[in-house]
Each structure stands twice: as structure tokens, then as C-alpha cells.
């Protein structure tokens, strides 16, 4: 589904990602793990088209999207939820969701149907439909950005650190929801620092450190791998 081959990302002369390769199969939930500064977010931004790749290739369903800009990536079927939880704070919840369906704006019937489905998944968003998104709590904003991404009806969803800065109880709920999405057949790439939570929902995982992939395997293999915490703590 999503094939990343030998991808490099640079900021000026600093190489943040050094030739990494990984794949996400159809219907799979793959997690990309690593500490702060491991290059995870740069990888995500690059896949989403917000950063230019310095080398390597990215393919979605066999189609090359390496040089695509953000508008083209979402049209190709890949939706991104950035770690900065970018709701449009002055727009209402409903307007945020409506923009999520921007690429389907000609298909209002389909959008209404999709919105109803999402409202059952996120009842809070239905309640707060007319409220400015900036007034929502952190957890609600996270739900909103995920729901907004799903309004684009993507074939692959990129989730960047959905648990960042949220209370444990809310993190729990977010991961339950991610599990639900996976069961519905969505292909997901989940970037996380919260290893245990991520591995509890993931099929497979890759571990990044200093811009390179240093371990990969099924969730169980990674969990039992003795070197994980060492990579994690940067030791």
C-alpha cells in the first residue's frame, strides 16, 4: 500500500533522515517508533508532501508520490494528522470537518453520509458542531483532526503522535478509537513515542534512531527485543 524506499530528508546541510525503507500493507497498522529527534516527524512531513525528499522514493498503491505537493498527496488517498494537532481555531467544528472533505466537495451526499458515520464514532464532535475549534479541549481537538482527515475518505491514514500532551485517560480512548479504525479496514501508519500503547494496537513496527531504522518486526518481536529500551533511551 505505502512503500518508502531509501528515503532521505535534509534541512540545509543537516540530514534528519538517512535512507530509510519501510512498507505498510493493505489493512495493516504499522507503527514507527523512536525518541524525540529520531527523524519520525520529518519522515511523516516528507510523505505528506510538506517537505521535499533529498533522496529515495515514496509510492502509494504503486504510484510514485515522492515529488507530490500536499494537495496531490491527499488526492492520491493519503491523509495526514500532524503532531501539532492543527485544527483551524477560528473555524467551527463543522467548518473544520467540511474542509476535511474539500477534495470531495462535489459529492455532498457522500460527505453527509460520511459525517454521520463519524458523528457516531465521535459523538462529542456532533455536540460541539457550531463551536469554534479553538475552544475545544486537547483531546477533543485530537478527535477533530482525526475525524477531519477521515472526511477525505483516505486509503491510508498517517497519525503523528496522537497521544502527545494528552491525559492518560484520553490517550486510552484515542487508542481504542485507532483500534476501531483498524478493524474497519483502514491502513494506518502510526508514529509514536508511547511505545506500549503503540505496540498494543500495531501489527508491525519499525524503530528509528538518529534518522535510521535500527529495528523492525512484528509488535511482539519488538516488544520482546531486549535492545528496544536501549534504542529508546538513546543509549
Amino acid at each position, binding site marked *: 500500500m505505502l512503500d518508502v524506499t531509501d528515503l532521505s530528508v535534509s534541512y540545509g546541510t543537516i540530514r534528519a533522515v538517512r535512507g530509510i525503507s519501510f512498507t505498510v500493507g493493505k489493512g495493516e497498522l504499522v507503527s514507527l517508533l523512536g525518541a524525540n529527534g529520531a527523524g519520525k516527524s520529518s519522515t511523516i512531513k516528507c510523505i505528506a*508532501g510538506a517537505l521535499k525528499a533529498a533522496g529515495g522514493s515514496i509510492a502509494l498503491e504503486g504510484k510514485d508520490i515522492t515529488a507530490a505537493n500536499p494537495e496531490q498527496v491527499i488526492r492520491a488517498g493519503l491523509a495526514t494528522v*500532524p503532531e501539532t494537532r*492543527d485544527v483551524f481555531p477560528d*473555524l467551527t467544528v463543522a467548518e473544520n470537518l*467540511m*474542509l476535511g472533505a*474539500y477534495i470531495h466537495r462535489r459529492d455532498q451526499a457522500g460527505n453527509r453520509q460520511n459525517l454521520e458515520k463519524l458523528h457516531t464514532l465521535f459523538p462529542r464532535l456532533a455536540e460541539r458542531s457550531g463551536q469554534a475549534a479553538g475552544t475545544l479541549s486537547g483531546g477533543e481537538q485530537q478527535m477533530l483532526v482525526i475525524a477531519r482527515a477521515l472526511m477525505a475518505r483516505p486509503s491510508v491514514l498517517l497519525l503523528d503522535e496522537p497521544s502527545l500532551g494528552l491525559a492518560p485517560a484520553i490517550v486510552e480512548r484515542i487508542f481504542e478509537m485507532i483500534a476501531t479504525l483498524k478493524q474497519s479496514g483502514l491502513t494506518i501508519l502510526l508514529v509514536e513515542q508511547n511505545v506500549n500503547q503503540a505496540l498494543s494496537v500495531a501489527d508491525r513496527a519499525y524503530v528509528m534512531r538518529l534518522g535510521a531504522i535500527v529495528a523492525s518486526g512484528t509488535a511482539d518481536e519488538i516488544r520482546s527485543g531486549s535492545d528496544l529500551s536501549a534504542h529508546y533511551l538513546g543509549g
Partner: protein
Amino acid sequence: MAFAIQFVIDVLSLGGAYALMALGLVIIYGILRLVNFAYGELIMVAGYTMYLSSGSGLPWLVMATLAVGMAVLFGILTDYAAFRPVRAKSVTAVLITSFAFSNLLQNAALLFISPRPRNVPLPEIFSQTISIGGAITPVRNLITIAASIVLLAGVAFLMRKTTLGIAMRAAATNFTMARMLGVPANLIISSAFALSGFLAGVVGILWIGRIGTVVPGVGLEPLLVAFIATVIGGMRSLPGAVVGGFLLALIDTTLNYTLSQDLLKFRDAFTFSLVILILLWRPQGLIKGPASGQRT
């Protein structure tokens, strides 16, 4: 009573024009965080289009539509000539290129048309006056008020109710995120320039209608008005631009009525001093814009 009516009409007609001028500038600034110094020249373009088409025998409304159309066209052209090539480089670079483009257009008018004022065709109604409750006022003031109400309502509708408008507001707070949802950057930017040109075109006709002639430097005063109104209102807020425009008109009109002839010459200096006072009190302007986002 007559005086009060006169005063209110003056403030509203001047304020309506000022608000539209400011709005056209803020629409670009809000999305790109970039100031368009060539904004005044869009008004000039509308004026010269009227002048050049005056011999054509077309009905006035057709000429006016043509003038607004040219302002829209030149608005989009500004993007291609002055903004797009340097947008990614630096804020100062765009200030300089748009300032250069403004000079280019003005001097082109100087070279190809004339440094001297040129008459602009105006319908009869622009020079008529009407008496309301004892106050005698030019009809064009009422036209200006009506046009600004319609346009402000139109812009509000566009920004609140249409997908394009909502996408523009979204792009104003977080351009990259809007693009990640599939909103095409170029469409948004071109729309913003087109809308800015549209407002400049309409306000240009109303503005030039007050004097009846167009010169290469005609855009300077509207540009200055837009600058001051947006700084007062808050650089990035659309409602702020409107409030700033009306407030500036209130200040200007009050000074017009109260200052002696000798001091009236310094009106701009008094206005500017008031702006400084407002900024001392509120450096961000009266209305804070949407939460900050990254410039693109």
C-alpha cells in the same frame, strides 16, 4: 439635526470606502503575511480603464464593469510579477518587489498615458445632490454607503458560507494544513488577489468619482488609508480592517469639521499622531487576528 445627519452620512460614506480599501489589503496580508504595496495602483488601473474606454460609447455600467475587471486582472498579475517569484525568500523581498511593481505601473501610466489628470466618465447621478432632513449631501455619498454595505455583506457571505471562503480563512491561519486537506495553494492565493483587485476596482470608481479625474499617483491616498486602517484595526483581522476603516473615517471627518482652515492642511499629521497613541495603548491593533500560523 441637519448637521448630525450630514456628519453621519459623511462618516459612513468615507468609512465605507476606507473599510473596502483596508479589506482589500488585509485579505492578502491575512493569507500570505505579505504587504502589497502595489495595491493603490489597482485603483489607478480602474481609473485609467474608465478614461481609456470613455470614447467607446459603451454604457457607463459596462465601462465600470470593465474597470473592475481590469483591476482584478492586475491584482492577479501583481501576484505573478511581484509575489510568486520571491514569496519563499523573505518578507522584505516581497515588500521591495511590490513597491517596485507599484513604481513600475505608475511610471508606465506616466510614460504611456500622461502625467496630467485625465477625465473619467461619470454618470449624471454622481454630481447630483439630495436633501435629507435638511442636510444637503451628494448622491454619490449615498451610492458609496449602499455599495459598501452590499460589498461588505458579500465578502462576509463569501468568507463564512462558501467553501472557497472557508478555505481562505483556514489558509490564513495555517496554510500548510489547508494544503494537506487538498486546498490548492495557488487557487487560494489567486482568489485572494482577485478579490483584492475586485474591492480595489469598485472602491476606485467610487473614490475617483469624488474628484472626476485620474492621475498616476491616484492610488497613494487609498493605499495610505488602507495601511493606517489596518494597523489600527489589527493587521490580520478582516473585521478589524472594517472597524479600522470606519474609525479612521470618524477621526478624519471630525477633524474636517473641527479644525480651522490653517490646521486642516495638517490633518494627516493629526491622524497619524492619533494612530501612534492607539498603538501605544494596543500595539497589536484593536482586534487581534486569528491565532498565529506559519508564513508560507
